[in-house]
């Protein structure tokens, strides 16, 4: 029997970044229904920055988290509904609301060094009977030993899975292998990997992660996601099938969802351009892209200079406000 790999589709969460969080309820329902019928195991639905992310800082979503979850929960029949929560942005109240609408999986996302701010949320998710995934973002910023140390915090808190997350699309296959192997060796939980495609390595890195023991991997249809996006789910499914893995996803059906349902809803093609490549190279948070482009316009500076400087300042996920600060400083320098 072929080895089973779980696929979590994040079109309706990471993909929200690419549409500035503007999917309509109907958009979400059509995509979720398609994903469900294609056999995707888990469907993630949230603001791009997780539940409670709708804000000046990250962009206001077209609808509330509650409206989106209510809508999507009506069309999902087999897939598990998943939400993302970043402690410090969303709270236990968001998790409780999501559980009410049938969310079965909670991914608790922290910067790779700050897992302890998510302990209470892992515990709350478990108490409500949800599957809890500890999601360590920006994993490229620290050595594998540090990733292990933080994964253990989530393990002790009661997490069911550990995710190693390359939020900046900054890892090369070697970096992925080192981190996945280290966590696999030290932790008694299954491991997942979330890739970004800023250096055209999303699928390659994902295969590497699986080779090193990852059992759950993320994709988004057409790769729609922050910066250059993610592993395209339809490509991922085909590649894994070719490699002899079983995902439970129908290859033709997921291609149809990607091309026929998702493409017409995209605001721009998800591609590696000079700005998203700079994000991967400089190792900065993927969702900074559109914010940096807007700030570049407003302050008359190059978005790449902003992104590079964000890397120099060692910013972490969520620090979108620093983009304006950097752009302001750069524009004064140029005067």
């Amino acid at each position: 029997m072929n080895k089973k790999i779980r696929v979590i589709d994040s079109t309706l969460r990471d993909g929200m970044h690419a549409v500035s969080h503007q999917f309509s309820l109907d958009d979400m329902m059509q995509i979720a229904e398609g994903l469900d019928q294609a056999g995707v195991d888990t469907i993630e639905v949230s603001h791009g920055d997780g539940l409670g992310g709708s804000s000046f800082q990250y962009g206001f979503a077209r609808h509330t988290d509650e409206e989106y979850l209510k809508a999507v929960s009506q069309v999902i029949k087999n897939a598990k509904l998943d939400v993302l929560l970043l402690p410090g942005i969303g709270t236990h109240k968001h998790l409780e609301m999501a559980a009410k609408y049938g969310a079965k999986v909670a991914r608790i996302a922290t910067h790779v060094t700050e897992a302890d701010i998510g302990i209470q949320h892992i515990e709350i998710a478990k108490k409500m009977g949800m599957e809890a995934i500890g999601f360590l973002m920006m994993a490229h910023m620290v050595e594998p030993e540090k990733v292990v140390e933080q994964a253990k915090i989530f393990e002790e808190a009661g997490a069911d899975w550990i995710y190693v997350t390359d939020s900046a699309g900054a890892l090369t296959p070697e970096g992925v292998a080192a981190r996945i192997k280290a966590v696999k060796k030290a932790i008694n939980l299954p491991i997942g990997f979330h890739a970004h495609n800023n250096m055209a390595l999303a699928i390659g890195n994902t295969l590497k992660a699986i080779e090193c023991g990852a059992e759950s991997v993320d994709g988004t249809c057409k790769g729609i996601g922050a910066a250059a996006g993610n592993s395209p789910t339809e490509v991922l499914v085909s590649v894994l099938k070719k490699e002899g893995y079983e995902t439970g996803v129908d290859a033709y059906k997921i291609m149809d969802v990607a091309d026929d349902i998702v493409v017409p809803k995209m605001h721009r093609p998800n591609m590696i351009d000079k700005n998203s490549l700079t994000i991967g190279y400089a190792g900065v948070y993927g969702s900074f892209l559109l914010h940096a482009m807007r700030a570049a316009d407003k302050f008359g500076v190059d978005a790449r200079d902003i992104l590079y400087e964000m890397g120099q300042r060692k910013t972490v996920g969520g620090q979108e406000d620093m983009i304006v600060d950097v752009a302001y400083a750069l524009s004064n320098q140029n005067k």
Partner: protein
Amino acid sequence: MNNKVKAAIIGPGNIGLDLMFKLMRSDYIEVDSVVSANPNSKGLKIVRKNGITAIDKGVEGIIGNKDIKIVFDATSARAHQAHAPLLADDNKIAIDLTPAAVGPYVIPAVNINQHLDETNINMVTCGGQATTPIVAAINEVADVEYAEIVATIASLSAGPGTRASIDEFTETTARGLVEVGGADRGKAIIILNPAEPPLIMRDTVYTQVKNLDKEAITLAVEKMVAKVKKYVPGYTLKVPPIFDGNKVTVMLEIEGAGDYLPKYSGNLDIMTSAAKAVGEEVAMRMLRK
């Protein structure tokens, strides 16, 4: 003036000790003693070294001591809930640096004069102390419909208490923006950044206003920054108000005074500085009577 009001501090942790050093320079308050419930407290050793009475029997150690008029509580929300009734019965004014919120929220630059008669005063959160003054200043001239703040602090300056109750931080801070800042709605976000060397506390304040008067808003913000700076010297306007439709963005940096804690932990410094400011107002009032 040789008359000072006697005060005690409960909880000789980072916050309690930083506050102790600040109050040792006060013209109106004399630190009588510092209290811990733990006889082996490392903090109490530092207290003794500085010639201040260290009490290791918990709050009971100061109950009945009528000389002590003001008590700063730098323990935890749960501990303060237990301390509050004991202190009130003993006629001591409690200045609460925990998120317990037994008493009203006080931001010295905004609403201290409304609450000088209270027997229990809550200091909100560090993010609240840093950002609420700006929201209140803008609200005064432009009517704030929605206020949102982002507090970014160095990972090293977030202790286990903050980490275990991060939801409490965002919820309390958001409530402060509404109740004290005057916004119709509020939201707070906190981000921990582990960079080395540690970054100085940064706060961004976004407001959505009804009456967009750029000049009045800029003036109000500058005046408020000067007002806060009087009791938090490291409080700086990093980027002047940026206008974008009816959205106003203000960016602040808060550098600590480095009394006991490192300078990057402006988040802790603004709490102890604000607590000292409130304590001194209360003390001055007592001295005038």
